[in-house]
């Protein structure tokens, strides 16, 4: 069976915009390194973690599809597959991050550890060589699984063997377990250890749900872009509808986790736990925490409830942008207070790097999409996910 699947091509002006913004982000980072490194490194951490979320969330999405034998998304599975390609960029970013360790992590200074009995007690886990080793290991593992799953899917296009699906189900099952554990550890290592005295068992669930929500939003944006460049027959409104349902439910899941952590810490009122929210509850940080819940939950929840908005390209695109900004704000509130003090600051460093990171993500994902066939023509589930008119064509 072979079918001439149409190719996905974007106009050159879009590439120019993406190139300009990603270069701008890179410039902001490099200039910032010399002008105010103590402000640029936290920003780098936020965007590095965000980029990792977008790439890894897409792998999770694909893995869940394979493990659950889901057929509905096969027609556009190339979109999340393309999104996983930024994991490599995030991996390079992680190596860069190691140079910023001393600015970011209090526990990386040996003198600070010596003076502090709590840090001394945690030094078996929180020490420099082990941290570097762990981060390298996490990324190697994620990139390995992402590449192998995408490679099998692409090979199936050529030889049409059913084994590729079977192998991918196995790889996905392993990845879902290993990937969740490593991501939980990574968010503890990279973000929670910014305040090494503080700990919360729900914290990784907030980052995990945030990762899934934001990567779903990014995949939705990519889907809308692909749809509008001539794939409306393959990526249908039904697909958009299901994606909106997922977005809606994971945005609710995120706020559920957020409230779980916030309410329990507020209720039990133990000083070593409240130290996290003391920072984030008053003044400018308090308003931002409120805005965080509004952007990540209230807006998507209310907008995505009616059926009509779940099937509209425009509304979905806008809501996804709101969620991406909201997730950035979520990470900003996690990272900044212990490093930047009592009042939030928003300037060219924050905005420039965030926009640059998004441009980098969409640049890599769209470029990958252009270089691979848009439709997995030999996937056994393809027929199930196509609209009825297209099924006959695919079965030929």
């Amino acid at each position, binding site marked *: 069976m072979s079918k001439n699947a149409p190719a996905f091509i974007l106009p050159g002006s879009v590439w120019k915009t993406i190139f300009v913004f990603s270069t701008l982000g890179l410039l902001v980072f490099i200039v910032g390194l010399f002008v105010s490194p103590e402000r640029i490194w936290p920003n780098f951490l936020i965007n590095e973690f965000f980029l990792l979320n977008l790439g890894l969330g897409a792998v999770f999405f694909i893995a869940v599809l394979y493990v659950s034998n889901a057929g509905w998304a096969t027609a556009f599975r190339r979109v999340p597959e393309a999104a996983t390609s930024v994991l490599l960029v995030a991996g390079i970013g992680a190596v860069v991050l190691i140079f910023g360790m001393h600015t970011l992590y209090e526990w990386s200074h040996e003198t600070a550890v010596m003076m502090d009995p709590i840090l001394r007690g945690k030094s078996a886990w929180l020490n420099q060589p082990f941290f570097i080793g762990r981060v390298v290991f996490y990324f190697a593992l994620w990139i390995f699984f992402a590449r192998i799953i995408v490679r099998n899917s692409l090979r199936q296009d050529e030889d049409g063997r059913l084994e590729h699906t079977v192998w991918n189900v196995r790889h996905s099952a392993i990845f879902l377990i290993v990937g969740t554990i490593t991501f939980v550890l990574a968010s503890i290592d990279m973000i929670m250890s910014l305040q090494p005295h503080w700990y919360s068992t729900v914290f990784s669930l907030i980052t995990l749900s945030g990762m899934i929500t934001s990567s779903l939003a990014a995949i939705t944006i990519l889907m809308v872009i692909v749809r509008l460049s001539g794939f409306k027959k393959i990526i249908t409104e039904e697909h958009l509808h299901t994606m909106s349902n997922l977005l809606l439910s994971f945005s609710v899941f995120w706020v559920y986790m957020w*409230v779980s952590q*916030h309410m329990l810490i507020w*209720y039990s*009122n133990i000083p070593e736990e409240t130290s996290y929210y003391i920072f984030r509850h008053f003044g400018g940080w308090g308003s931002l925490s409120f805005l965080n819940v509004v952007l990540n939950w209230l807006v998507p929840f209310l907008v995505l*409830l009616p059926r009509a908005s779940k099937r509209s390209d425009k509304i979905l695109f806008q809501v996804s942008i709101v969620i991406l900004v909201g997730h950035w704000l979520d990470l900003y509130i996690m990272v900044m207070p212990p490093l930047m003090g009592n009042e939030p600051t928003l300037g060219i460093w924050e905005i420039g790097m965030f926009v640059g990171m998004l441009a980098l993500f969409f640049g890599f994902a769209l470029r990958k999409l252009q270089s691979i066939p848009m439709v997995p023509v030999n996937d056994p589930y393809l027929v199930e996910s196509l609209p*009825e008119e297209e099924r006959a064509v695919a079965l030929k």
Partner: protein
Amino acid sequence: MDRPLIIGVFTNEHDIVGAVKETRASGYNIYDVYTPYAVHGLDEAMGLKPSRLTYVCFLFALLGLATAIVTQFWIGSIDWPLNVGGKPFNSLPAYLPVAFELTVLFGGLGVVFVMLFRSKLFPGKKERSIHPRVTDDRFVLVLEVSDAVTDENIVRSLWENYSVEEVSRMEEMA
């Protein structure tokens, strides 16, 4: 219903969807379609409007939310203030679990009762089935005979393209 009805029995979901589309296109009035399970695309084929129950659900959910917040506020801050761990009497985080529960409870129960009321269903109601096998494996299309022009033979020949199993006429819906 006092008008006579024409009933067609089909054996699979593709046939019934096709028959519904073509019957509507020919200008007949479809009274209802009975299927053993929810058939995808049947709502669009029948031209049914989206259910308004979602709005009812939303309103009930809002009512539940308001009830929970107002009740807890009134109990905790006005009627019987208790000092719990030195927290302010009026604190939103403490209201959230109950607010969530009542939102879901009101929304869920409200929409079910409104649905039962709207479809005139109640426990113990006697309902006659249009066809004995409609809850098993048959798909039934019920056509309203709107005027004298409606000819059973034409309808039958229309449905034969979709391998209709049985066509019968019913003088009125019991």
